[in-house]
């Protein structure tokens, strides 16, 4: 049987690192569209099942509009059964939308106790358990065994993969438990990066990752997993579905005489497309004060921000020898540990002493 395994969509959760309210609104829309693409993928691939491994939304901040959208989309998959489990952000509480609303017939939301839903068509059954609150320090998988090892046994679960003896507030999952479970395929959610197929015992398991990155720490392609599972095992295929990717680019400004040169260097160094988000880290020694706005002007990107880690190319060493106010000032600052604050202080002080207008 074929299934789409996705999770951690995080509807209506804030994006960070966007300098612009408009961009933030667009990113929220991106998430909605990507979800639409997941549903479309399920239809395209004629998937039998769509598994959503938790954190679809945030229970406290989800808007009714989003819920309506999700229900509509899921309801439109007439030939696919949808299974959903609640994660740490969207636990199935008495006041959760999972309980308060009527969901389409083809959608099954797992209860807070391990349940089994038979899939007789494929001689399979699917287990699942939702978070009942924001924290589940006790492992939900502990001691689990399948009822009928002959069947194709699936499980949908949200939790954190931890090593033996480690703890987690978010349903710690131990390899030993997976190995002993007897499951054919364990569809996991919580970690935002696709792990690739992992094995423990005869169980194949994977974290599908989130379909749309949310920050520069989530760089690279994101999407969902198409899994083909039968009683013997599972084969996984990753499909990239994200609208935009995050990239961090390091740009050495040493030797550049003006902004244009830098801009050219930058353009050449961009790894992604004009749809993507960039974080540009400037390093090296700047011969002139680098203005972020000028540098980013006309850059083909969705959004970009500059992190300035350059050093000004001043003959500070010479200056510090000068027994003058300037000299003493430079000397004092150079004695401190280098940091952005110290560098700024140097910049402000020297400008002020030269009688220039200091621009913050």
């Amino acid at each position, binding site marked *: 049987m074929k299934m789409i395994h996705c999770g951690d969509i995080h509807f209506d959760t804030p994006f960070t690192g*966007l300098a612009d309210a408009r961009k933030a609104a667009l990113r929220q829309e991106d998430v909605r569209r990507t979800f639409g693409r997941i549903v479309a993928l399920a239809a395209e691939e004629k998937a039998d099942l769509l598994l959503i491994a938790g954190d679809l939304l945030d229970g406290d901040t989800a808007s009714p509009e989003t819920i309506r959208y999700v229900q509509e989309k899921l309801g439109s998959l007439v030939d696919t059964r949808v299974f959903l489990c609640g994660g740490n952000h969207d636990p199935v509480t008495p006041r959760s939308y999972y309980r308060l609303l009527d969901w389409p017939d083809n959608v099954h939301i797992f209860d807070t106790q391990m349940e089994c839903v038979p899939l007789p068509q494929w001689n399979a059954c699917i287990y699942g358990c939702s978070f009942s609150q924001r924290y589940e320090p006790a492992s939900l998988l502990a001691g689990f065994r399948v009822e009928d090892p002959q069947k194709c046994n699936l499980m949908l679960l949200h939790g954190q993969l931890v090593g033996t003896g480690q703890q987690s507030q978010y349903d710690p999952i131990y390899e030993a438990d997976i190995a002993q479970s007897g499951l054919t395929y364990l569809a996991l959610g919580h970690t935002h990066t696709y792990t690739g197929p992992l094995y423990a015992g005869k169980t194949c398991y994977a974290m599908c990752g989130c379909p749309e990155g949310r920050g520069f720490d989530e760089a690279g392609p994101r999407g969902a997993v198409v899994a083909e599972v039968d009683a013997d095992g599972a084969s996984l295929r990753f499909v990239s579905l994200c609208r935009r990717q995050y990239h961090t680019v390091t740009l050495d400004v040493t030797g550049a005489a003006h902004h244009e040169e830098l801009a050219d260097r930058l353009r050449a160094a961009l790894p992604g497309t004009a749809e993507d988000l960039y974080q540009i880290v400037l390093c090296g020694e700047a011969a002139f004060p680098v203005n972020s706005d000028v540098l980013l002007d006309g850059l083909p990107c969705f959004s970009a921000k500059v992190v300035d880690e350059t050093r000004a190319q001043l003959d500070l060493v010479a200056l510090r020898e000068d027994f003058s106010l300037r000299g003493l000032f430079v000397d004092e600052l150079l004695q401190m540990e280098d940091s952005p604050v110290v560098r700024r202080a140097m910049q402000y002080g020297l400008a002020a002493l030269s009688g220039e207008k200091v621009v913050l």
Partner: protein
Amino acid sequence: MEIQQITIEQFGKFRDTKLTFGPGMNVIYGANEAGKSTICAFLLAMFYGMPNDSKKKSTRENVRARYMPWGEEKMAGSVAFTHAGKSYVIERRMGDVRRKDKVTVRDGATWEEVVIPDKEEAGRYFFGIGPEAFRKTLYTGQLASVISPDKEDEVLDRLANLRQTGEEDVSYQRASSQLTSLLNSLRSVSGRAGRMPALEEEIASLRAEEERSRSVLAQHREDLARVGMLAEDSARLSAELAALEAQRAQSVRQGQYAEYRRLKDELATLTSRLQPDKLEAPNRKLAEVREAMEREKRFSDGSRADYERACQLRRREADLARQLSEEETHWEALRALEKERDSIPDIKGVNLPMLVLGLLVMVIGVVCGVVLHPILFAVFAVGIFLVAVSCLSIREQQEAQQKRRTLEAMIAEKRKTVDALGRDKLVSEREETQAELNDLLEVYQVKTEQEILDGLARRESLEKEGTALEREIALISEQQEAVKKDIDRVTAHLASFPFTEETREDDEQVLPLTELNAQITAKNQEILACETARREIAYELAHRLDGVRLPAEIAEERERKEEELADLGEKYEALSLALAAFAHGYETLKQDFAPVLSEHVGAILRRMSGGKYADVRVNDRFELCLKPADGGPLVDAAYVSGGTYDMIYLALRLGIIQTVLGVNVPLLVLDDSFSEYDDARTKAAVNLLGEVFPGVQVLYFTCHASFLSIAEGAHVVRLA
């Protein structure tokens, strides 16, 4: 540098004035008001221009106004000088505002214009310092030469630098204040104003908005839960209502049965009240009465009048009878009277014989009496007696006549009366009256008029009876009609029931209708309340989120602002750090320059005072502290006497010049600086100048002629 000549075209009181100077000491001598200050001002103006103090209305302060020649609009002049081996001429024209100024710097030999940086303040180039510094160092004024640091304190800066950097001037004060104001713009001293507090407030308010948004969403979920429960309630209530309705239908039916029975009973009662023969008796009676009335027909309304008439006749008749009887009586009376009259005897009144006798006796008597014997008067008496007796009958006669007369009168009267009565007429009238009366009585077939009245009364009572009977009959008929109608009505009503006596069923007893109705009303109200609540919630669900931003959006804005705040925080820290480093550096420098200055000033002061003061300490505010050579206590320069004060500050000035400019002093301008000194000290000071600043041109302005002799070999310029 050596100023060779100044040409004043017009400035202050001067017109086309040329003054020539030589190297070394130059004494410009003139009385008060001669224009020494004007020349100083002119020099300053030539090299540095004049400030635009248009805001200063006071002429004293507004130098342009002060020196603008009366009636003129411009000032003009030129200065010829040498500098670093070359000769130059500065020409300047000045108007009432700076913008109207024009300055040219030319090569003294070729007269070509030379390009120097900032020719407006050419002095910076040629003297190497700005106008303020010039005023504080190379130019020494007349009045108390207190030096104080100010905002644009070049001197202090230079002191702080200890040597000319050759670069643009650095101003600790200026730099420090720029950074401080930037710092305050980020966060003011009070901590309440500035970009950072503003951002902090915005962040706080966004947090609050986020909280509110979350709680609105939570409320939304609560409402969804409630909606579910209300739906259940609604279904339950509807079922309960249906049950009650069914019970009510039953109750209604039972009520109908009861009603049916009641109506049946009513019908029976009514039917029993139907008595058609009730009218028989009265009708009969009525007929009798009518008959009787017929019989007494003759007694009608007119009868009363007849009765009246009959009575009247009777009375008349009686009256006539009475009159007749009266007449009879009168006739009788008359007869009696006549009879009586006739019975009256004829009485001779007077017994004449007696009378005559009597008279005679009397006369006799008298005569006898007189003639004869008095006793014969008794005969008189007897005669009187006889007369008297004879007259007795007179009275009787009179009485009888009287009586007769009376009777006659009465009789006459009576006759009249009788006649008046007219017996015959009376009789006939009486007969008439009697006849009429009898006729009348006959008509009524009665014997007396009273009977008419009786008959009338009978008739009337019969009438009354008849009317009463009629009324009774009518009433009874009405009643019977009513009963008939009621019977019809009830019959119809009974017919309207969907069942008949035979077809109705009896089912089990339920609660009385009123109670069921009350319960149904209550249930309906519950349902209504439930529906209202549902509607309200539906409305809330639809609208609660209107105008409310989602938490994600608010959080994003907040994070952006927090990032901005962090960035500003870093900048704030950097500014603070820079300011601290400034202050620290400045302190270090001041700690350094003070000794150097002190040393220079000390040396000059030692020379000036002829060794009296050994040492001096100068602080960063140019306050001096003196140490006498003889080991006495330290003297604060502020407390010394006037002359010493001047000396000390002169030393300070010269010391500053030395410290700041080193030996490259271009020029010294002194405005009667030694005026307070005695001759010896003056000489010493002049020599000092020469020693401390060898070869430097000095322009000494004075109004004291004595100076001329002290300053031997000086080039003298006399002002008119």
